[in-house]
């Protein structure tokens, strides 16, 4: 009885989204939680994984499969699921996690539930689950009937909890010490067809990635007024150690590049602070910023929908408030 979790790395560490997936995977209560890692076995963060209750690691080394090839990764998971008699295979709800699990669903002919926030075994082949619809603006309660439950875990809705603490939603019990972790080097058999689509990687321009992980995001919307109105927001973001994000209208007007868009069809952010300036708060924008710990709105309209999602608000024109705030911060 094994739960397999595709585990992505962020440098030398397990990616935060994967730790959240492992936390949910552990809550399923199978005796074995296996991380599947595509990396050199010398670089596998085994003790960090053990902290999250991982009992086994299957490592697919670059000599067996180099780089990211989504269908090949799914084929590896399918093989391991059969070999270990897996009851569930999961991944983080990242671009890669959703893509690989979609391939796995197609390969196995089984259903796949994307962006779950809760999964509970309900006897036999049944799992009850809660998943995101509308990018998390709605929740769906669903039932999955399948010999192997395939799902991804919403990246902004499940907290990562180390195995020393009970997982959220699990019955609190005595804390368990991480057991010894077994690392297996796995050599998959792959067909040529699985390797047709394969990523060639090169460094990308800055912007998109830092928005997703920034501690502070200064958001600008229609109220900024035009492409030349963003300098004070950039200055404020610099002072706060953050980055600028924008609403959809700003990118569809061509004022800023799409990679800065916060929203359902842009980037989902999870900062400590989101300062939403001149943003009314269309629901498609809320889907991108609801993961912020604190939201402060600056808006001329006291009836703007953003105020229903914000902790604090200043009623006023961002063109006056932001320069005054920059001045006050510089004076400190």
């Amino acid at each position: 009885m094994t739960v397999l979790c595709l585990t992505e790395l962020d440098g030398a560490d397990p990616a935060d989204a994967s730790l959240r997936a492992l936390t949910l995977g552990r809550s399923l209560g199978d005796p074995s939680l296996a991380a599947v890692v595509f990396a050199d076995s010398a670089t596998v963060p085994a003790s960090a994984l053990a902290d999250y209750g991982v009992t086994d690691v299957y490592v697919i080394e670059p000599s067996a499969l180099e780089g990211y090839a989504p269908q090949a990764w799914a084929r590896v998971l399918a093989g391991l699921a059969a070999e270990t008699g897996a009851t569930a295979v999961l991944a983080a709800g990242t671009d890669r996690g959703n893509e690989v699990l979609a391939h796995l669903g197609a390969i196995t002919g089984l259903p796949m539930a994307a962006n779950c926030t809760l999964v509970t075994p309900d006897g036999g082949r049944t799992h009850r689950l809660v998943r995101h619809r509308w990018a998390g603006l709605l929740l769906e309660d669903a039932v999955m009937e399948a010999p192997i439950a395939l799902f991804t875990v919403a990246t902004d809705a499940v907290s990562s909890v180390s195995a020393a603490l009970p997982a959220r939603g699990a019955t609190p019990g005595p804390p368990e010490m991480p057991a010894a972790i077994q690392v297996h080097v796995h050599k998959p058999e792959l067909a040529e067809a699985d390797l047709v689509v394969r990523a060639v990687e090169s460094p990308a321009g800055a912007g998109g990635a830092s928005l997703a992980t920034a501690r502070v995001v200064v958001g600008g919307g229609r109220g900024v007024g035009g492409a030349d109105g963003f300098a004070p927001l950039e200055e404020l973001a610099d002072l706060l150690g953050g980055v600028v994000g924008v609403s959809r209208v700003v990118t569809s007007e061509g004022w800023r590049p799409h990679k800065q868009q916060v929203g359902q069809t842009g980037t989902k952010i999870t900062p400590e602070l989101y300062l939403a300036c001149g943003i009314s708060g269309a629901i498609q924008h809320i889907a991108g910023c609801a993961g912020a710990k604190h939201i402060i709105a600056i808006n001329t309209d006291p009836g703007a929908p953003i105020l229903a999602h914000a902790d604090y608000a200043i009623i006023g024109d961002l063109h006056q408030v932001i320069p005054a705030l920059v001045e006050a911060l510089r004076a400190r």
Partner: protein
Amino acid sequence: MEILVCVKRVPTVGGKIAVTPDGQEVDTRMSGFSISPHEECAVEEAVQITEQVGGSVSVLTLGPEAAIEQLRGALALGAGRAVLLETDGREFGPIATASAIAAEVRSHGYDLVLLGNEAADTGDYQVGVRLAHELGWPVATGIKNLSVAADGVVARREYRGVEEAYELPLPAVITVKEGINLPRYPSLPGRLRAKRAAVERSSPAWAAEGLRKEALRVPASSKHQATVLGNGADAVPELVRVLDELGIL
């Protein structure tokens, strides 16, 4: 190049989203309908490709008869042919959706099928991939840049600060994200042509799937109406105090 673009009619949500009393659908009494931004970009991308290399664009939707409105929207932007896979109101799961689209693809012969990366409403993230497997075609997802090469297409996206480039032989399936282009506005002649265009129809079979929706609900929010710190620049000292208190400074 023969290109098929798949789009989906979904409610246009503005400032609020609500669920019908039976918990089965989004309440659309106060909303219009549209296609998702990803799909608007897929239509635009297909039109731009055929403008460059020739060929034609077909647009397909699986949905109720009313979804003809969304097909006409795509026709107005430059698609030449429209296909409605008409449903009886039941929600098709991703497996049934992919196989219904695959039947159309097999009967017409396309070089490229474009979809949005995920549907705005169900967010299943898998129809394009399942379609590719049904057809035995290669697939790339979440694409933000697409170019046609001599022997296929090159599709690019960013992941964790790294650019990934995929070379795909044709025929292929590509799912795109908003930002790949800036969609054009429909022209008046385009709208007139769209109004008169014929729509081809068929009715694929619905089938139950292993993932069954029980109910939709709006998540309980921990947020409530914001505390107003003040008006205009006069509120800045209070804002600085709050930023300090939140540990931001």
